[in-house]
């Protein structure tokens, strides 16, 4: 903006000093002007603002603050300036800008205590939630007419069918990477042909299902948490309850069933596509014909590897869906909570899946499916 604010100092005959301000006193011109005002060290008896062209509340505030500091009298104020100065003076306050915070050492201790306390609460919460789901499931079985078939089909489409392309692509690429990297290492022992064993066993036993679970947690677990969380915020869930519809039956059970069932299908699909990826690399880089690769798979991979994958898949699906729905149902308060809970759903689902996978690995080896 144009125009600059100035001031001049004049000594009166009475011995006092008058500070005369001129120019526009606006929020756009005040920055520099205020700095200069701060430098004034003389005793000021009167502040003359009759030459001020324009003034807004910020200008009025600066004038009144200056006058207060020097216990000076303001003269020459136009009607509007007088009005503004009165208004800002009556609105002055000393309040802090931020709430007071505890010192760091105290905050750390408090935060840790809260975490520990909440950990117990969330274990109870998840177990309780699982119980609610089982009760809901039992009551749906007793009253098959209440079974949310449409919602189940819809969720199966969203969780399963819609995920096929991305999971297929991911598995294909993983198959390629394992075959290619495996061949490089195995060739040091002259055992490139064992690449087939590597690809077949690792995708069917571990990677197919594990990577799918991680992908489903990211795609669907987060969506469950966000959808149910938003429905809680907009009081849709409460509305369902008042009408007599159980949100567990209508929202949670279809999602959990869909996720558990589709995980089996997706996990198997992922393993198969992974093997195909390995076979493609076999044909292109290792000199193993495509169909020979597939035939060798049949010979070197024991059938129980397929069972291992298929048994783990529904468990992982259940964990992902439970984490998503549980966290969604825990949302309350504001929209920020939806974000936090969604993150929590994905992180805790992936973490739990990997921990359970470790247990499964030991278990299956112990029963002789190693």
């Amino acid at each position, binding site marked *: 903006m144009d125009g600059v604010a100035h001031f001049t100092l004049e000594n009166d005959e009475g011995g006092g000093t008058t500070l005369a301000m001129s120019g526009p006193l606006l*929020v756009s011109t005040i920055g520099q002007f205020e700095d200069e005002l701060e430098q004034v060290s003389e005793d000021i008896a009167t502040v003359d603002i009759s030459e001020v062209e324009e003034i807004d509340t910020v200008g009025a*505030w600066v004038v009144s*603050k200056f006058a207060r500091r020097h216990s000076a009298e303001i003269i020459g104020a136009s009607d509007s300036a007088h009005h503004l100065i009165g208004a800002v003076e009556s609105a002055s*306050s000393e309040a802090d*800008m*931020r709430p007071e915070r505890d010192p760091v050492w105290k905050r750390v201790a408090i935060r840790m205590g809260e975490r520990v306390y909440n950990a117990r609460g969330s274990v109870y919460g998840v177990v309780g939630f699982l119980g609610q789901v089982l009760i809901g499931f039992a009551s749906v079985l007793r009253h098959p007419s209440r079974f949310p078939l449409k919602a189940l089909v819809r969720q199966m489409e969203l969780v399963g069918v819609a995920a096929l392309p991305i999971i297929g692509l991911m598995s294909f690429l993983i198959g390629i990477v394992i075959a290619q990297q495996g061949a490089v290492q195995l060739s040091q022992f002259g055992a490139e042909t064992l690449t087939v064993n590597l690809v077949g066993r690792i995708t069917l036993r571990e990677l197919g299902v594990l990577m799918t679970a991680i992908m489903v947690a990211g795609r669907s677990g987060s969506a469950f948490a966000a959808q149910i969380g938003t429905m809680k915020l907009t009081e849709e869930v409460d509305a369902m309850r008042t009408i007599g519809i159980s949100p567990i039956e209508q929202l949670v059970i279809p999602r959990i069933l869909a996720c558990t069932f589709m995980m089996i299908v997706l996990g198997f699909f992922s393993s198969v596509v992974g093997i195909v990826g390995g076979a493609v690399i076999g044909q292109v880089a290792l000199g193993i014909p495509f169909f020979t690769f597939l035939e060798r798979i049949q010979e070197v991979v024991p059938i129980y590897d397929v069972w291992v994958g298929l048994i783990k898949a529904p468990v992982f699906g259940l964990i992902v869906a439970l984490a998503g729905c549980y966290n969604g149902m825990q949302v309350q308060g504001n929209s920020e909570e939806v974000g936090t809970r969604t993150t929590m759903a994905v992180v805790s689902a992936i973490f739990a899946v990997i921990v359970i996978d470790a247990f499964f690995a030991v278990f299956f080896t112990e029963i002789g499916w190693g």
Partner: protein
Amino acid sequence: MAGHQRFSDEPPIVIEGLENKFGDFAVHQDLDLTVKRGEILGVVGGSGTGKSVLMRSIIGLQTPTAGRIEVLGHELTAHDPDEELGVRNRWGVLFQGGALFSTLTVGENVEVPLKQFYPEIDDELRKEIARYKVMMSGLPEEAVAKYPSELSGGMKKRAGLARALALDPELLFLDEPTAGLDPIGAAKFDRQTKELRDTLGLTVFLITHDLDSLYEICDRVAVLADKKVIATGTISELIDTNHPWIDEYFNGPRGRGAQSAHNLNTERAAADKGD
């Protein structure tokens, strides 16, 4: 006034032939509206007549399909970034829910526009400005250090108002400021708006459904219907137009209630003066 454009007499908002289309559906067509300096203009219209879209077009959040919008002497529909920058610090906007930044305290919220546009202002002075703005918008002192999530709906709106007033704007946009407030809070907010207009010389563009606000504080009312502003004027002028929608709006049961309440208030005020 020494080459300064502030508070000159040109109308702060001039809209000519505005058209807003969403796909094939036109919300506005050939809409004309002029807001006079220093007035509180109420904008009314049924749900879905595009009151908020109109406001968003004026403040540049929605690009109109056709037409001309001039705000404070700058033509915004020309999409010249310099032109836009020249007006952005001269208006304040209060959104329906307050739209406060949730990670900042109320005081810090008010500081944001000051920091953005006038970084040369000293930290201490900026804090003082933020504090008195919060107080001026009618919040208690303790509210300065509170986070938006700790405030009630009415307090959020006041905090939003404080932020809208941060730069001492000439033009203030209020989107349904009294919606969702209790009648006492709404009346207070109305009074506050009027006081601020009188003290700061604001021009106020007020979208509202609140008939009491229309009677109490609006100088003129613009009625949106049939994709355009069908009438502008004082309430009595509007009633004289005999348009069926306007008639239903002001002469329906609620309109009558607000009118008689207004008359009662004016009588009381006159009686108080007489004593």
